[in-house]
């Protein structure tokens, strides 16, 4: 997020249509990432970040810690669809590493092992 935008109230301060950041594209060349897909910055590419447009650079910078697509959209105050395109491009270009949900059961939910760990983790809180 750029500093001058950080202190303005959410909502109507944008003068550029949000999909201008994606050059009008609503689909990324990359995979369709779900809302909860987490991305982290790929360590090797920090230096090349200077070549990125500001929104993309902001994403790479904030992803020094794991963040979901939903969180990135909220931080940039753009719809998830916009964040999805930008993040998809950054994953394809090697700036970001995507961590996708692992669906394995017949119903498409997490595995028993993952659910067991989730349960342990929640009980320990």
């Amino acid at each position, binding site marked *: 997020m750029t500093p001058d935008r950080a202190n303005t109230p959410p909502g109507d301060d944008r003068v550029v249509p949000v999909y201008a950041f994606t050059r009008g594209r609503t689909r990324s060349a990359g995979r369709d990432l*779900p*809302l*909860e*897909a*987490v991305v*982290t910055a790929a*360590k*090797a590419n*920090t*230096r090349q970040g200077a070549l990125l447009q500001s929104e993309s650079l902001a994403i790479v910078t904030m992803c020094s810690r*794991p963040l*979901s697509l*939903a*969180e990135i*959209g*909220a*931080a940039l105050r753009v*719809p*998830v*669809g916009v964040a999805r395109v930008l993040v998809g491009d950054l994953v394809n270009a090697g700036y970001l*590493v995507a*961590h*996708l*949900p*692992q*669906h394995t*059961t*017949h*119903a*498409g*939910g*997490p*595995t*028993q092992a*993952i*659910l*067991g*760990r*989730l*349960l342990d*983790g*929640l*009980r320990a*809180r």
Partner: protein
Amino acid sequence: MGSAHADLYPSRPPPPQPEIIPLKILVAGGFGVGKTTFVGSVSEITPLTTEEVMTSESVGVDDTTAVPDKTTTTVAMDFGRITVDEQLILYLFGTPGQHRFWFMWDELARGAVGAVVLVDLRRIDDCFAAVDYFESRRIPFVVGVNGFPGTAVFANDTVRDALALPTDCPLVRMDAREPRSCLDTLIALVEHALGRSTAA
């Protein structure tokens, strides 16, 4: 730049990037039932709002024969996050409350651990759409009866009957304002989901 940063902590070299596994739980129920409160009670971040464009095949209600048979709607969702351990990150999504969007939950529900359906006993009808949805999709869910003050007391069996809940679906009394209560509700859900996956 990245390596210079790492040099500041020579005793703790950064490990290779751990495989992070995102998980999600949906929080559903009628408008004003406490979904946002619930998410805020257990989230480690201030709940955020996001907008997602949802797509659905047209169900033929509107006369849109001249246009492709897809409809898209932008819906706002609240969400929060619980970092469970160094690998697991759990996201909670408050589903859009409007009934007419129920058929758009498929994208949101895909891969979910399950759902918490919040119920306000003063407006029990409001949660029918959510209960029907998760039951028909065989998505594990628990019903959380949010204890609004001044609510008449109903026995659990009465509530279960009114909602036509499956016998294995947990029903918990909770208070969306209380973090402990919300956490216990999530635990009940994960126990239920785990039981389902073991039985399957």
